């Protein structure tokens, strides 16, 4: 039982910080219907920026993170204006390919710029893990959970309660009708990419601290893809639920059965789960249903 509980808790915390990455997909998909395949790479870029500011330029950590936030927001704006806006009105697949291309570019660019060696992103958290009986939670995971929940709450507030957030959802529903209300679609898109930039920094901080910063950080994008599909591509609540389900199940399955199959269940279970859910709910657990009135 203790073993199970510790696997569960570890899985849930992991799931939470999966959700942090998954947000990068959802923010973009919600407004633009584009699957942003550069999520992992944007996170990697943020991680590189932070470590570079600290390591190469000797900035204090907080300043490095602040500066990276600014740069990633800017990156989101520039990307939208320079690369994606010219594609508005064309088939969405073009933009999706563009994000793929961007990802490949960043994966090549970052190591050339800052080196291939793994860099530490030290958050200077206490080394002492949080213990509760047999359950051990490292501080970094705890910080990750905190940051995730905080961001989720911020975005939930933004989309539900602010006029800009409502405008983003309006664009997601019906672009032309939104234009008819005076909403500038391109501004909404740019805003979404800027928000994705912010989550990339948060993800870069947490995951960079957990596994170090190098080009492999970008692989997390693919890794959390089942989370996004499971939760629903356009649901913020879905990312956290999807994250928790995936994190807990891969950890539990891995913990019990990896020894029989020689490992690797962690990578396999999420995709099986994803397929199972898709069979029952094609829009994911919390994806936007297609409303059909009778």
């Amino acid at each position, binding site marked *: 039982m203790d073993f199970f509980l510790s696997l569960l808790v570890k899985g849930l915390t992991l799931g939470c910080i999966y959700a942090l990455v998954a947000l990068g997909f959802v923010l973009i998909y919600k407004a633009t219907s584009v699957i942003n395949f550069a999520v992992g790479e944007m996170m990697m870029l943020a991680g590189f920026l932070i470590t570079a500011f600290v390591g190469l330029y000797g900035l204090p950590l907080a300043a490095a993170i602040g500066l990276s936030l600014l740069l990633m927001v800017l990156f989101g704006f520039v990307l939208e204006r320079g690369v994606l806006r010219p594609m508005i009105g064309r088939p969405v697949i073009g933009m999706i390919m563009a994000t793929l291309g961007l990802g490949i570019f960043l994966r090549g660019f970052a190591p050339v710029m800052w080196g291939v060696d793994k860099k530490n992103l030290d958050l200077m958290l206490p080394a002492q893990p949080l213990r509760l009986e047999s359950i051990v939670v490292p501080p970094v995971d705890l910080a990750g959970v905190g940051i995730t929940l905080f961001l989720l709450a911020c975005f939930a507030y933004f989309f539900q309660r602010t*006029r800009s957030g409502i405008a983003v959802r309006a664009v997601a*529903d*019906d672009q032309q009708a939104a234009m008819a209300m005076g909403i*500038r679609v391109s501004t909404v898109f740019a805003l979404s990419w800027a928000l994705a930039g912010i989550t990339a920094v948060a993800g870069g901080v947490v995951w960079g601290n957990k596994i170090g910063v190098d080009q492999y950080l970008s692989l997390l994008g693919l890794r959390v893809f089942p989370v996004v599909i499971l939760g629903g591509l356009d649901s913020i609540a879905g990312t956290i639920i999807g994250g928790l389900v995936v994190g807990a199940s891969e950890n539990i399955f891995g913990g019990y059965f990896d020894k029989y199959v020689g490992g690797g269940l962690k990578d396999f279970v999420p995709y099986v789960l994803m397929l199972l859910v898709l069979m029952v709910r094609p829009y994911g657990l919390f994806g936007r249903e297609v409303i059909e*009135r009778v």
Partner: protein
Amino acid sequence: MVAAPERPLLQVNNIEVVYNGVVLVLRGVSLQVPQGGIVALLGANGAGKSTTLKAISGLLRPERGEVTKGSIEFMGERIDEKDAADIVRLGIVQVMEGRRVFEHLTTEENLIAGAHIRRDGQIRRDLEMVYHYFPQLKARRNVKAGYLSGGEQQMLAIGRALMSRPKLMLLDEPSLGLAPQLVAEIFDIVVRLNQEEKVTMLLVEQNAMMALQIAGYGYVMEDGRIVLDGDPEKLLNNEDIKEFYLGLSAVGQRKSYREVKHYKRRKRWLS
């Protein structure tokens, strides 16, 4: 009595509209909407009514349509080159055909989205104003708009447009698919908004009878042109109108219309 020559609120001068760079849909449309009036734009399905409204509101662009000739002036300012977002800010709002509410937003969120351009602090008050005209919407304020009835959605579409505090509202077939009693209710409110809120209306309808009852002036379109215009009395007494628009049920209108149309009659309209 000689009326002072007053500039109309909206003036459409001989515009042509092309879709996809090749399909010529409007072939020289001119019309005027006086300040404070209700003007009806009538015509069969496919005549180019919606295209005319979208040309005015700037909504052609996302459909790859373009005004290639002529000009559109609103309060003396040319707007045919402007973005939809800027045109809304000048005071023109379009209620699109088919209602087009934001289905996954609640009724109230739809109204808030309608107030997107507003920078004054009066949005709360105007929500109440909309609920005053459409009490049903207040009862349904927290329901997702996709689950509203057709009539409620049409009310929401009009209420949402009202939230931008427009000077001119372009209404595209508000009666489409609604029961007669609801249509009467909606037309009633259109008149009240015109009188009480001073919103000028350009009303597109296939339901010519209803539209001409509330309009001060009417235009009839066919194949991308205005073929007839005048006071409601004149239009109501016009033989072709009587035959083609008023005597027929909404269903099958176009078919019957085509059947009886012949060259001579066209000529009479054009003369």
